[in-house]
């Protein structure tokens, strides 16, 4: 073997060794970079998954990419890409907190609106039911229905009244148990039925 070949071989080996050492030197920082990102994601807590799932998913996808790079020993690539991903991961907690506050404010506003609707409905529906029931009871004694009311409509109205009373019981029970949403939902159905009955009877609110 010529001296030049020996030297070249030695140089190649030395370079390879240096590269190996260089890679090994970058492996730990790359691993740490990924760990830091995962810690930032974990710090965002379950709120991130609940309130900013798309943003969380985007960061998680980038972590998957970084890990793939790491597995391919592309530590340099990991270290180069990690700061941007870490910044996004560190932003998750704040974004989740803001989104949570916005969601809670929206929920509070919706609850307030439902409470107001309940107040209105609970202030009118019992009176409507009582007025309809009174008229239906009287008409039930009638030998002949008035000209503007046929037997089929009257029978349907009686069924509607019974349904309205049942639904109203459900609405008040739901409200009493603190479930305003269920209370309002049932009360809206009661209103539909009482409105239909009032129209059929030619009755209006004073």
């Amino acid at each position, binding site marked *: 073997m010529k001296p030049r070949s020996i030297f070249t071989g030695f140089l190649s080996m030395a370079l390879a060794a240096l590269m190996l050492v260089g890679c090994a030197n970058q492996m730990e920082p790359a691993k740490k970079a990924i760990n830091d990102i995962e810690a930032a994601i974990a710090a965002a807590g379950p709120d991130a998954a609940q309130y900013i799932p798309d943003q969380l998913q985007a960061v998680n996808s980038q972590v998957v990419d970084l890990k793939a790079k790491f597995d391919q020993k592309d530590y340099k690539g990991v270290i180069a890409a990690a700061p941007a991903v870490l910044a996004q991961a560190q932003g998750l907690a704040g974004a989740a907190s803001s989104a949570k506050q916005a969601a809670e404010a929206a929920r509070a506003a919706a609850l307030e609106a439902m409470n107001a609707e309940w107040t209105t409905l609970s202030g*009118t529906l019992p009176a409507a039911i009582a*007025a309809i029931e009174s*008229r239906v009871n*009287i008409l039930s*004694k*009638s*030998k002949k229905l008035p000209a503007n009311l046929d037997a089929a409509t009257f029978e349907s109205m009686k069924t509607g009244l019974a349904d309205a009373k049942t639904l109203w019981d459900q609405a008040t029970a739901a409200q009493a148990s603190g479930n305003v949403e269920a209370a309002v939902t049932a009360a809206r159905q009661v209103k539909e039925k009482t409105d239909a009955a009032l129209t059929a009877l030619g*009755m209006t609110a*004073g």
Partner: protein
Amino acid sequence: MEEKKAKPAAAEPKATGENPYTQWYEVKKGDTLWKIAKERYGDGSLYPEIFKANQDILSDPDKIKVGQKLRIP
């Protein structure tokens, strides 16, 4: 019962505690409770229902006055 004369619908009095869905009828000339019950219920014999609902202003079912505003239960 003697049929009394009356008039069509009217503005309802606002009484405290009154059901807002209470229906009102303003007595016209020629109206009677029987006639009103016949029109509203299809059966004149149900006039006592109207009388009972208006006992605060009626003492006799045969005595209604033009312009009186009656509850129609």
